[in-house]
Each structure stands twice: as structure tokens, then as C-alpha cells.
């Protein structure tokens, strides 16, 4: 039992990062190559922490504000991004993250600058995180089973076809953006109320790279993909602890290896394999019945 409790902080990190990963996932699922979530989480985190620390707002309300801020900024971003595609969207959203980071460091009176904010009340524990992640997973799965999820998949796979079937690409991608903004803002706020302190660089380029990696490693289509990807990459530095300074090397090597051999991600590749086995079995039994 103590052994497990010792891992609680790591589990919390896993939960938080799964939330971030799911936020990244939903926007990629709709074919939007956005990496803005790092910036959106930063906004959500700082707003939530700031409201409580400086204005005494109740943390739950602050969390709500953070989530809404994520939505608002995401929608604001989605409008100019609507006419860009692929790599250009990625770079534009990367620029957004850098701007947020830079303004954050500069606006010292508000954000504490490079030193960040301290003394944030720890209101969020493992159970809150579990509920938040559970709710997010539910939402993502639910969306997948409805018209919206199908629209996401259509726009991602073939825009021209989607449009010819009456799907509005701008609207669909804006919705995806908004949802990802909500998730990003929420989990940014949760992180703020869990970790006592915030500093701007925790939402910088490395963070952006990490959450992208969770999704690409685990799989971009199924909802479980990001969860698995996060689990693997969060656990890895712990498992590789004996390797000390070489942990990050192993992390990098893992990314390269998975992309080379399982380019669609661990979970998606596995699901495809299982589905093909299932198809083959059905085909065999149909053939058997016919002969």
C-alpha cells in the first residue's frame, strides 16, 4: 500500500497530462494541426490562479473562468486559422504559444513574470483529477458516437468529401478548437490548484512537444490512444530512473522507435490489428457457411 501511495504524485501527473493529451487529441481528430493547447493551458492556469490569489475568487469559480478563457481564446484562434492547413496551422499555433509565453514573462505585475505565481492553495487532489479525466474521456467517447464525431473524422480524412456531404469545415473545426480549448483551460487550472506554483516555462516548447508526443505515440484516432501514450511517457522517466541523465535519451529513442514501427501509434495499430483478425475470422466463417 505504501508502495502505491509513493507513486501517487506520479499518478497525479499522469492524470493531469492525460487531460492535456485529450485536449490535443480532439483537435487533431478534426484534422486541425494545432499545437496551441500549451498556450491555452497557460492562460487557463494563470487566470484561475490569479483570480483566486489576487481577487479571492473561490477556486471552483476560478477553474470555470479558466475553462471559459480557454474556449474564448481557442475560438479567437480558430477564425484566422480556418484558412491555413497542415504545417502552416502548426507553425501559427506555435507562434501563439510563444507569444503567450513571452507576454506572460513580461507582464510581471500580473503574472509574477519569470518567477511565476506562488502560494496557490492546493484544492485539487487525486480524486478531483480522476473525476475530471473520467468526465473528459466520457465526453470524447460520446462525441465519437454522434454526428459531431463523424464530422470530425470526415473533415480529417477527406475535406472535399466532407464538404460535398454538407459538412461545414469551418464550423466543425471551430467546435473542435473550442472543445480542446475548454479541456486545455480546465486542466491548466487544475494543475495550478494542484501544484502550489506556476511558472511560465512549464507551458513552453517542451510542454508542447510532450503533449503532442502523448497523442502521436498512443494513437490519434481512438480515445484510449492518448491515455496510453501519456501513461507510457509519464512512467518512462520513472522506470528509467536508474539511467539518470540518460532518461531523456531513452524517451527520445522511444519516440523514434514507435514512429518508425508503429507510425499510427500504439493503440491504433493494436486496434487495427484486432479488427483485421476479426474480419478474417468473419470472412472465413462466411466462406465456410457458403461451401
Amino acid at each position, binding site marked *: 500500500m505504501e508502495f502505491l501511495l509513493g507513486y501517487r504524485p506520479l499518478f497525479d501527473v499522469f492524470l493531469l497530462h492525460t487531460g492535456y493529451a485529450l485536449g490535443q487529441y480532439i483537435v487533431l481528430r478534426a484534422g486541425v494541426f494545432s499545437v496551441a493547447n500549451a498556450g491555452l493551458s497557460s492562460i487557463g492556469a494563470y487566470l484561475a490562479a490569479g483570480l483566486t490569489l489576487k481577487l479571492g475568487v473561490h477556486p471552483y469559480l476560478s477553474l470555470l473562468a479558466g475553462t471559459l478563457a480557454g474556449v474564448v481564446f481557442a475560438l479567437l484562434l480558430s477564425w484566422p486559422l480556418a484558412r491555413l492547413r497542415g504545417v502552416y496551422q502548426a507553425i501559427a499555433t506555435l507562434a501563439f504559444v510563444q507569444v503567450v509565453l513571452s507576454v506572460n514573462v513580461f507582464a510581471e505585475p500580473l503574472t509574477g513574470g519569470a518567477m511565476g505565481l506562488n502560494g496557490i492553495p492546493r484544492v485539487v487532489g487525486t480524486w478531483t483529477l480522476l473525476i475530471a479525466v473520467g468526465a473528459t474521456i*466520457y*465526453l470524447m*467517447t*460520446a*462525441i465519437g*458516437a*454522434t*454526428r*459531431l*464525431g*463523424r*464530422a470530425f*473524422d*470526415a473533415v480529417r*480524412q*477527406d475535406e*472535399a*468529401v*466532407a*464538404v*460535398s*456531404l*454538407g*459538412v*461545414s*469545415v469551418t464550423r466543425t473545426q471551430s*467546435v473542435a478548437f473550442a*472543445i480542446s480549448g475548454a479541456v486545455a483551460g480546465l486542466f491548466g487550472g487544475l494543475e495550478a490548484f494542484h501544484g502550489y506554483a506556476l511558472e511560465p516555462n512549464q507551458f513552453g516548447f517542451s510542454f508542447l512537444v510532450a503533449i503532442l508526443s502523448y497523442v502521436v505515440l498512443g494513437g490519434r484516432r481512438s480515445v484510449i490512444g492518448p491515455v496510453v501514450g501519456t501513461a507510457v511517457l509519464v512512467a518512462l522517466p520513472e522506470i528509467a530512473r536508474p539511467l539518470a541523465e540518460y532518461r531523456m535519451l531513452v524517451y527520445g529513442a522511444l519516440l523514434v522507435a514507435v514512429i518508425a514501427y508503429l507510425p499510427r501509434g500504439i493503440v491504433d495499430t493494436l486496434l*487495427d490489428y484486432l*479488427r483485421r483478425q476479426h*474480419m478474417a475470422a*468473419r470472412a472465413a466463417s*462466411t466462406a465456410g457457411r457458403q461451401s
Partner: protein
Amino acid sequence: MKGLSLQGVCKRFGGVTAADEITLDVPAGRVTGLIGPNGAGKTTIVNLITGMLALSAGRIVFDGRDISALGADRISRLGFARTFQNIRLFKEASVVDNLLIGFHKLQQSSLVSNILGLPAARAETARIRAMAHDLLQRFDMSRFADFPAGGLSYGHQRRVEMMRALAASPTVLLLDEPVAGMNDVEAAELGRIFLEVAASGIAVLLIEHNIRFVTRLCEQVHVLDYGRVIASGTPRQVMSDPAVIAAYLGS
């Protein structure tokens, strides 16, 4: 009856005129043919009609309404459906999943109920899933329901594309070389379906190379060459037109 009408439609790409003063009608209840050698501009016309390309000049009128400037998804929602020259199915998704997206236009569930996965949204999905299975049955494809679309034979893939286009009960159906590469038997079966579809009041535009096929199905045929309509009339008239013969065989 809802018919489609192109009036003096032009499309220029820089110095190239892909479509030049195209005037033709696609009346409801009939199959209208559009034929012409490769590169004549047939797919361009479909793209212009469906809103994938902007017109350089002219008008497109549907049911008395000028749709020339509408966006592609808007036009689709007015009741337009099309198939593509190269089959564009979602290869990794199952046949049923490919059809489900075909019903997108018909669905009414609110955004909120979709995001939260409320019963209304789920019930709607169940309903259109049933409709998809009905469609599969009508096309005798039920046994392929859960197959990945990319694993089907060419002829079957074409059928799936057809089903997807018909799923939302369109009023205008644009078919871009739907039987290319099929043998006569398969083509004839699809041809029967086109006639049925037209008979139910839909305006069908059929773009094809297979002249025998077009002759059997269409009362009215337009011939395109280098972006211009060079002949219009019944198949027999058009086939004996020297300009048409020259275009296909070279003079």
C-alpha cells in the same frame, strides 16, 4: 419540379479557359448526359456546380434560385450530392461508417447533445444506422457492412460511393464517371439504379465516357470539348454530329 440550370458559365484559371459559356439544363426526373474527350472540362463543371470552384462568369440556377456564389457545404445542404471520378471513400473505415456520414445533412441533433452524448444524439445515430442498413439491403451489400471500405472490389466500392451519395435523399445527383472500369453487367445494374433515382423526381447529371451506356440512359446529351459545349440533343442526334465525331476521333 426542381431543376438545375447553367447559364453562360465560365471558368478561367489564369490564361486557361477550362469552361467557356456553358449553357445547359439538368431537368428533374431525367438523366442528362455530359460526355466529351479527356480534359474537356467535365469534372470542372461538376466542381463549379457543387461550389468547389468559383465561377469566373455566368450563373447557376437551381429551383429558380441563383446558387452561383454559395459555398460548397451550403450547396450540398440544398440537396446536391455527387460522386467522384477517383473513388473517395474513407478506406480505413467500415462500409457502414462510410454511409453514416452520408446522412450528416439529415441530422438535426443539437451541438450540445452531441458534445455531451445525450440520448437524443445517440438515438439519432441509431436511427441513421438503421437507415444505412436499409440502404445496404437495397443495394444487396448487407454482407459487407462491417468490412473496411478499402478492402472491397472496385465495383463494390463504386456502389458504396453511390449509396453514400443517395443516403440523404438528394434532389440533384451529379455522377462523375460512375461506371468507369466496370464490366457491362455491373454497369447495367448501376444504370438501372440511376433510372430509378431519376424516375423518383431527382435531377441526374451523368458524366461518362462509355457512350453506349450514356445512350441507353439519357434522353438528352451534351458534348463538351475544350471547355465548350459543341453539341446538344438526343443521343442519336449527337452521335451523328460531325463536330462530335471529330472531337473524339480527331479530324
